[in-house]
């Protein structure tokens, strides 16, 4: 009896799992191949609702959208957007089953090859001609996609988004060496000629402000521990011009030299040294590597942490400081010398690896046409302007000289209510923008994000920002960076050219080495004295050797070298 029951259960289970297998491997048919022409100009746009899986940012919620920008998109392309928010788990089951949305934005290149091999993504090679703006603005990214995000056929399956074909100063969400301007002035506005100068400055600031208004102890330097490798970066990565890559290695952005953990030029070792010295001076928060980022941010808001490295973190805090009559945080630059080739500009000819747009192969021609209209729109200057500034004709217009500007009403409304642009849908759809946020428009001098242009900014400068500009002899704060002689370009392309899939043993040893370093670095930084620091560092290096570091490191060194060579070849 027992055996029979087991047998029945097994049979049922097998039948079920067979059907499961069949339906999951049966995705390969679909459209592509022969392409019907899209509707030509002047013809009525077909109304199509597209399901889009993308990062909803901080304003959108899933479902059908009806904000001013969505209405504008509908008017221009006939597309009604039905959004679904990005989620890692959801992405992984989608890739495993091939159940893609009409338009899906994938955030990991490693997911692309399986999607292509299971036939889940549509071939865009023939369709792309209907999105001329992509070809025009992002030629290199298409070439890249066909070579690195495709199979042997060299077809176009993926559109890497947020492309930035030419190096432009990073005007939004900068990294920097942020301290409060009044604190800096109070400390005697010292020049930062070395990291020791920076530590001196921070120490002075903490000495001047040992407690917050409510009597809590302050720390000049703090940190958090829940961002993995990203927890160990600081303003040094900007000013030393170093970019971190997997395995806690780094490369110099100016001469592209690779530094591993046995090399003191390594970004993370430079960071550890800096933090160690901060701790020696008693200006490092003892909870630096215990707290999570949200705790760090809360301390920053409470005024218990006196310096930080991300602009987005202090935007809100600066507003509050200004409202209460205080000065906000500003980026205090390191000396304009060869040692500090600051990362000022950014270029992303192949877009960002977290923004890979694919189209489901289940879309019929009608949907494909709509998708191409949408893609063409988000890659166009007009589309990009609409996404970051709100719809044309409502918030901005093009004047007689062909220059885009906010309308008078917008400027007035924005001054009265700083959230006005946001109510018009500005910056809602950055999750699907084709061109990067801070990119020059076709005039080559002005950002298409109108809030970044100096004419707009100059009008809105606060008192402390005016003082800051006067001190450095510039018009707007960004010029402190752009007028620098020693600067380097952060090229996102190298990251894109590193392999996206690693052999299993490499990816596993990477995981364990990174976990080991994440755990060891705080201990190293908290060393009691230089001697202990040196001993600990030697121990870490010794242990790394037993963790297959040499093989794994050689793999990444080679991969980076290849990326550089390939880049030169591709861009020729």
């Amino acid at each position, binding site marked *: 009896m027992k055996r029979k029951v087991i047998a029945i259960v097994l049979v049922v289970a097998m039948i079920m799992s067979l059907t499961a297998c069949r339906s999951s491997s049966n995705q390969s048919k679909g459209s592509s191949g022969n392409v019907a022409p899209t509707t030509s100009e002047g013809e009525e746009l077909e109304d199509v609702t597209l399901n889009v899986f993308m990062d909803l940012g901080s304003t959108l919620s899933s479902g059908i959208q009806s904000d001013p920008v969505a209405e504008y998109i509908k008017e221009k392309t006939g597309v009604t957007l039905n959004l679904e928010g990005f989620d890692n788990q959801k992405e992984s089951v989608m890739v495993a089953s091939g159940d893609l949305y009409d338009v899906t934005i994938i955030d990991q290149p490693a997911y692309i090859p399986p999607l292509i*091999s299971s036939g889940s993504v549509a071939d865009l090679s023939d369709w792309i001609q209907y999105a001329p703006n992509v070809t025009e603005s992002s030629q290199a990214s298409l070439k890249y996609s066909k070579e690195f995000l495709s199979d042997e056929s060299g077809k176009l399956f993926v559109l890497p988004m947020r492309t930035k074909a030419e190096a432009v100063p990073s005007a939004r969400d900068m990294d920097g060496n942020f301290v409060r301007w009044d604190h800096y002035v109070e400390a005697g506005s010292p020049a930062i000629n070395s990291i020791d100068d920076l530590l001196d400055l921070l120490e002075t600031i903490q000495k001047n402000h040992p407690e917050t208004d409510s009597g*809590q102890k302050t720390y000049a330097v703090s940190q958090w521990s829940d961002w993995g490798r990203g927890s160990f970066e600081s303003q040094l990565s900007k000013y030393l011009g170093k970019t971190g890559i997997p395995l806690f290695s780094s490369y110099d952005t100016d001469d592209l030299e690779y530094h591993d953990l046995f090399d003191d030029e390594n970004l993370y070792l430079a960071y550890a040294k800096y933090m160690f010295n901060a701790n020696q001076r008693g200006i490092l928060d003892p909870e630096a590597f215990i707290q999570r980022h949200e705790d760090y941010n809360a301390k920053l808001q409470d005024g218990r942490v006196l310096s930080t490295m991300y602009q987005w973190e202090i935007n809100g805090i600066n507003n509050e400081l200004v409202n209460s009559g205080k000065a906000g945080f500003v980026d205090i630059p390191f000396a304009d010398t060869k040692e500090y080739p600051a990362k000022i500009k950014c270029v992303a000819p192949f877009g960002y690896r977290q923004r890979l747009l694919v189209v489901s192969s289940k879309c019929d021609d009608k949907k494909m046409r709509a998708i191409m209209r949408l893609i063409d729109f988000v890659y166009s200057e007009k589309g990009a302007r609409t996404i970051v500034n709100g719809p044309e004709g409502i918030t901005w217009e093009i004047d007689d000289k062909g220059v885009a500007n906010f309308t008078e009403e917008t400027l007035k409304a924005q001054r009265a209510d700083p959230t006005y642009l946001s109510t018009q849908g500005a910056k809602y759809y950055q999750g699907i923008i084709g061109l990067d946020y801070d990119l020059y428009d076709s005039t080559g001098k002005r950002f298409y994000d109108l809030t970044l242009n100096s004419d707009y900014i100059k009008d809105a400068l606060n008192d402390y920002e005016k003082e800051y500009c006067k001190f450095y002899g510039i018009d707007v704060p960004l010029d402190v960076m752009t007028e620098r002689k020693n600067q380097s370009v952060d090229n996102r392309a190298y990251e894109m050219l590193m392999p996206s899939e690693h052999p299993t043993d490499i990816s596993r040893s990477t995981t364990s080495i990174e976990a080991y370093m994440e755990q*060891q670095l705080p201990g190293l930084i908290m060393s009691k004295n230089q001697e202990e620091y040196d001993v600990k560092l030697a121990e870490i290096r010794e242990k790394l050797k037993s963790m297959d570091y040499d093989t794994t490191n050689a793999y990444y060194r080679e991969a980076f070298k290849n990326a550089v060579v390939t880049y030169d070849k591709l861009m020729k």
Partner: protein
Amino acid sequence: MEVAKRSKKRRYLTKGQLVLLGMTLPSILLITVFCYLPMSGWIYSFFDYRIGYKLSNSEFVGLANFRYAFGDTYVLKVIGNTLIISFLGMLNLPIACAIAILLSEVRFSKFRRAVQTVITLPNFISWVIVYSIAFALFSTDGLITSLIASITGQAPTATLLSNPATAKLFMVGLNIWKSAGYSSIIFFASITGIDPELYDAAKVDGAGRWHQIKFITVPSLLPTLMVLAIIQVGFILNNGFEQFYCFVNPVIRDQIEVLDYYVYRLGMLQNDVPLSTAVSMCKTFVSVVLVFSVNKLAKKINGQSVI
């Protein structure tokens, strides 16, 4: 299945059996479909499978994934942590039971009800928020830390959040705080089911409160306690990863890293499906073996098998 049932019907089954089977099989079918069917995914653990690829395109690697998961000496420490935290966590049951017994002896029914409601509250607070509150209470500027500092007159060197020596106990304590009240619901229900005549008879015999608890309440709760304990033994390798994901930091990580978090870090975070599958497969085997061994043991001692 139909055929099998019908042929059985003709030969062996009585009407009563048929009715019982009819009431049983739908549930069994549900378990089969929703719990056992997805088990086919265990096959991933023997392949170098990557998300999205077909199994037929993946290389068969035998036990390599198991070897990787359990080959590291660090995993021994992780398993050690898991066992210690789980064993201490089993205190949850006797505590929940004691709460239920003692609380039902309290005479003031409004107070009793209020406590009964409030002790279930922690269960509804997610770990992320428990962490936020713990940080507000126990970090260097936290309410409790500064309270202790003002009593003792010295600043603490390490807080509960960052003291490796007490990290495990802190995790266990939080876990019991969060779940004991909720688990006590079961015992409240079981106490309700005790025949009041038993108490009346005991009272007539002059048994005091303590005797009533000892000779009536506790023995009546024992079967439930036993069966829950055996179930929990099976969960000895499962601590969930959420709590540890929220509370982990580099200072105490090697003290509180448990198997579930380890797998999350190695497997899920890196999309290493074969690895996490291999570990959960082993966990299931361990659970089943443990549950049936303990059950056998209970049978030897008690003369009656629980499961």
